[in-house]
């Protein structure tokens, strides 16, 4: 019997679900610009109220619904990140969806369902709940990717993501099944207790289960060699959805990954950390090297997001529970710089014409100094240049590796960020030191974009110059692992 009072802890999830259903109804009964605009505003209201409720949960640590669901600071921190993503993406979508003709209630509704899935995914100690969250998130995004129905690439992206996502889900589910089979447990905390006292019933099976979990999560965080869908999907999906995926999905996948591996599977660290060491190195190197030769900015940012997953994995594999805070910090920082960069990508495009090749950026510094300046800030932050937040994030991640004596990994990460600087700076040099190659026409200018860019710029400076406060928050959030 579930006491009714427990529902108050999932108020943010309830709000999101409710609003999403309302939006779905609006979308079902009325089409047109006005209804989509209202949906957008309602979505914003919904995400703000959910954000408000989530912030109130800070400091609450409680298991509810027979331990199927958990409210703790770790989950709350990530939920705040998701809701920030939702808010920012909603704001940039106002104009973008109208321009591309995909504005509808369903769009916003799916955005909210996706975030709902992410929130469920990171707030449970139970494999089944995590899996349900993952699926809710993924299904929403499969649809969102294919919203540009007249665009072949978008449809292709959606289908590819769906097929490969289903494939990866199978791995994940099989992994859970093997772990259950060898221990009889689906709850992470109980699993930890079990592993501390005795060996699993069938060790091989159990280890294979861990391996399959790595594959499943590796797909969602876009790590090599499970990354191959990323460039195609990121490029094909509507740009606002790309921003949503690159930040929200990645944060959710990492959130669940960290929770599973740090809560339950730490006793087996020597096993998975070696594998993930290789995966992290491959992810950083292949992500960065391939990004070097890209000429399409969306694709370039896709590879860059692969490389960033590698950096986060660097902190992850140390297995030191103290440094998990650097992962959360990095995810937060990463959210702002990526959404900012994708906003600029959106602004340069027009209906049916994305202008994402690098030549489109030539001369932007002269034509639109403000946009170029913001883009430079996002790219410099991605490259990890102080005093921007990207530097602080990278600093904490690499110092985690150094403190845990993964020196080679730290060296490889630093070398990689040198390589990465090249392709980020290439865009900047294009913006400032090249003559415009062709006429681009009017840039899609709207106050919403400017607002989002300013928020991101401010956040990057704020977190870069005063990282301490956020690190302390992240440390409080990760205290559950200690």
């Amino acid at each position, binding site marked *: 019997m579930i006491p009714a009072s427990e529902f108050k802890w999932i108020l943010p999830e309830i709000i999101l679900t409710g609003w999403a259903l309302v939006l779905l109804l609006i979308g079902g009964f009325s089409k047109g610009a006005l209804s989509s605009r209202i949906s957008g505003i309602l979505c914003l209201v919904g995400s703000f109220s959910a954000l408000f409720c989530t912030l109130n949960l800070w400091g609450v640590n409680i298991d509810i619904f027979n331990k199927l669901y958990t409210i703790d600071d770790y989950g709350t921190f990530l939920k705040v990140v998701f809701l920030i993503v939702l808010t920012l993406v909603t704001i940039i979508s106002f104009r973008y969806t109208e321009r591309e003709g995909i504005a509808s209630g369903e769009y916003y509704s799916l955005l909210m369902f996706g975030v709902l899935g992410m929130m469920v995914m990171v707030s449970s100690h139970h494999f089944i709940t995590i899996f349900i969250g993952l699926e809710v998130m993924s299904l929403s995004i499969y649809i969102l990717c294919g919203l540009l129905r007249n665009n072949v690439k978008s449809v*292709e992206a959606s*289908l*590819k993501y769906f*097929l*490969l996502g289903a*494939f*990866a889900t199978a*791995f994940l589910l099989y992994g859970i099944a093997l772990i259950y089979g060898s221990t009889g447990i689906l709850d992470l905390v109980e699993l930890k207790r079990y592993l501390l006292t005795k060996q699993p019933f069938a*060790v*091989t099976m159990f*280890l*294979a289960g*861990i*391996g*399959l979990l*790595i*594959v499943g999560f*590796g*797909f969602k965080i876009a790590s*090599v*060699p*499970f990354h*191959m*869908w990323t*460039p*195609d999907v990121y490029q094909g999906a509507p740009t606002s959805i790309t921003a949503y995926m690159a930040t929200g999905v990645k944060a959710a996948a990492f959130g669940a990954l960290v929770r599973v591996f740090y809560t339950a599977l730490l006793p*087996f660290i*020597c*096993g*998975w950390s*070696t*594998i993930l060491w*290789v*995966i992290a190195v491959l992810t950083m190197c*292949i992500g960065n*090297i*391939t990004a*070097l*030769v890209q000429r399409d900015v969306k694709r370039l940012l896709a590879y860059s997001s692969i490389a960033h997953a590698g950096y986060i994995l660097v902190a992850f594999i140390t297995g030191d529970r103290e440094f998990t805070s650097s992962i959360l910090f990095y995810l937060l920082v990463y959210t702002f710089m990526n959404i900012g960069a994708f906003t600029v990508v959106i602004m340069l495009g027009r209906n049916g014409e994305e202008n994402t090749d690098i030549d489109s950026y030539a001369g932007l510094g002269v034509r639109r100094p403000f946009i170029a300046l913001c883009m430079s800030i996002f790219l410099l932050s991605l490259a990890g240049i102080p005093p921007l937040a990207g530097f602080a994030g990278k600093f904490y991640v690499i*110092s985690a590796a150094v403190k845990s004596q993964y020196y080679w990994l730290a060296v490889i990460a630093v070398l990689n960020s040198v390589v990465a600087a090249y392709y980020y700076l290439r865009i900047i040099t294009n913006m400032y030191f090249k003559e415009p190659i062709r006429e681009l026409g009017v840039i899609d200018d709207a106050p919403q974009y400017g607002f989002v860019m300013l928020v991101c710029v401010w956040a990057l400076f704020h977190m870069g*110059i*005063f990282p*301490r406060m956020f*690190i302390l928050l992240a440390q409080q959030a990760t205290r559950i692992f200690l």
Partner: protein
Amino acid sequence: MADYIWLIPVFPAIGFLINGLLGIKFPKTLTAWVACLSVFCSFVVSAIIFKQFLDLPAEARVFEMTAFDWIVSGDFSTQIAFRIDALSIIMCLIVSGVGSLIHVYSVGYMHGEAGFRRFFTYLNLFVFMMLILVTADNLLLMFVGWEGVGLCSYLLIGYYYEKDSAANAGKKAFIVNRIGDLGFLLGVFLLVTTLASNGVWTLKYSELQANAHLLTPALAMAITLLFFLGATGKSAQIPLYVWLPDAMEGPTPVSSLIHAATMVTAGVYMIARLNFFYTMAPTTLLVITIIGLLTAFFAATIGCAQYDIKRVLAYSTVSQLGYMFVGVGAGAYAAGIFHLMTHAFFKGLLFLGAGSVMHAMSGELDMRKMGGLRKKIPITYWTCFIACLAIAGVPGLSGFFSKDEILWMTYSRNGANIWFWLFGAATAGLTAFYMFRMFFNTFHGTCRASEEVKHHIHESPKVMTIPLMVLAVLSLVGGYVGVPHLLGGSNYIEKWLEPVFGHAPAPAAQSMHAFDLSVIGNAFASSGASGTVHETSAELYLMIAAIVIGLSGIFIAWLFYVKNPELPKKFVKKFDGLFNLVHNKYFVDEIYGFIFVNNLFRLGNLCKNFFDEKIIDGIINGTASLVAGMGGLLRRLQNGLVQGYAFAMILGAIFVLYFMIRMIP
């Protein structure tokens, strides 16, 4: 009440941001107002704090304020925090006060320039950085200011960047300063690691002072020497002084503010700030004294043989900075800071005066083409006259008191070493000579300018002359805060700085001794310890001797350039070789060029031709083809076909499973 000290540096930053970010369409007047007001506001805040200090007991004259944690990493943390005490308030007053005057002056001086806004933006940024440097309460933040002023110095020296010489001078200043900055940084590193090995993680001055005893003498010496290397760069001492004369390529107000009154004194401030370390390292102090004396003397000799008035002033600055180091090297930090202050007044004034002369002479700098300007630009003439008297050490003006204090400290604190004193006094004589050489050449005699230039000679506008007059008044009276006990004063500034520098050794006996020549005789003979009993009389004799030397310098200049203008030519003819040597600055630039610059270029070329083009390019081209190859391979994998992607996932899964299962014991 200490809450608002952060306002001191912040005001110029606001001015910088307003002019820099929003000022594109500002009219010049608005830009000028924003720039001047922002610095003046800092001055007002400094003055208010100064007023509060006066009402407080000496020990309580420290305001500290932490804005926020800046870097926190493990046990080490550094804050953005400010500290105003007796020392930094003096620096704040000088920087913001003289800074405001020079800002006002620049409004007139830079009026016709195209880069008006750029100039004031940089200048505000400079004041901001300089105030950060002096108000920081830890070494790391000081280093931020230190680098920041270096950057602004570079930007402003190269203000006329279309001119090759200006661009090169900027580069030279920047590169030479890098060497010094490296010393500063190494000093910080060594300090941090040393203290950390004793379990203390801090860079905050007050905590450094409390933990200074953890340093062994050898380490203290190493650390202080490294910091001093930093100071030789920023404050233009041997061996790194070569950038300052070239820095005169910048607009004259810049030379006045940055390269005379404030930035170049940062090294002196830094040593005074870290006095607790320097006191622990007598060897370093001796090194500082010797370097300071040598710099002071050699720069003064070079100053005697230059024709460009700004170059004369530049070498004079180098020489006077040497003086300040002699002061702090003797452990008399208060004397060094005192001279820093008076120097800011009269040297700032001299540069502004030179600017005013240039303004009148259509940009002419060569004093051989000047002369007879006395009547035509009277305000400039009189203010420059006061400044020259002050720098020459004529009794009663500011320079006299501070210079005399340093000379006396050099003598008394270095075991009554008469040679140090003699060097210092000789420099003072040379200073008097070259300053009045410049003065007479510029203002007296007949005008040697071309007719066209002559036609245009006019006094500068009020916006330029008023700062001149204010600085002239300060040069006149600025010394009275440090009248020595000997002359019935109380040496107020030394007492003021006591909370920072600790108690100076007991002042000399108050009673006047009978005329006793034997003291000087003894001192000359033994150049060793002289009894404290005789100190007062010794101080008096030395003072009189210094005055005589200074006045004779003026007299010789008068003889050479007013009474008998043919004399210098004869002199030059007779001592042809010597003159050429000095006129060409002892060929130090050429020697540096031959030893360092050429070889570095050669090394650079070697690197470029062999290392870069063969090895690096080889690697890069190799990598590129490798990457291209990999790219080709990856592209073949990244062919857009889902089967391929799934296949890669399968391979990955096999790899992961293989590794996992291999784990089984």
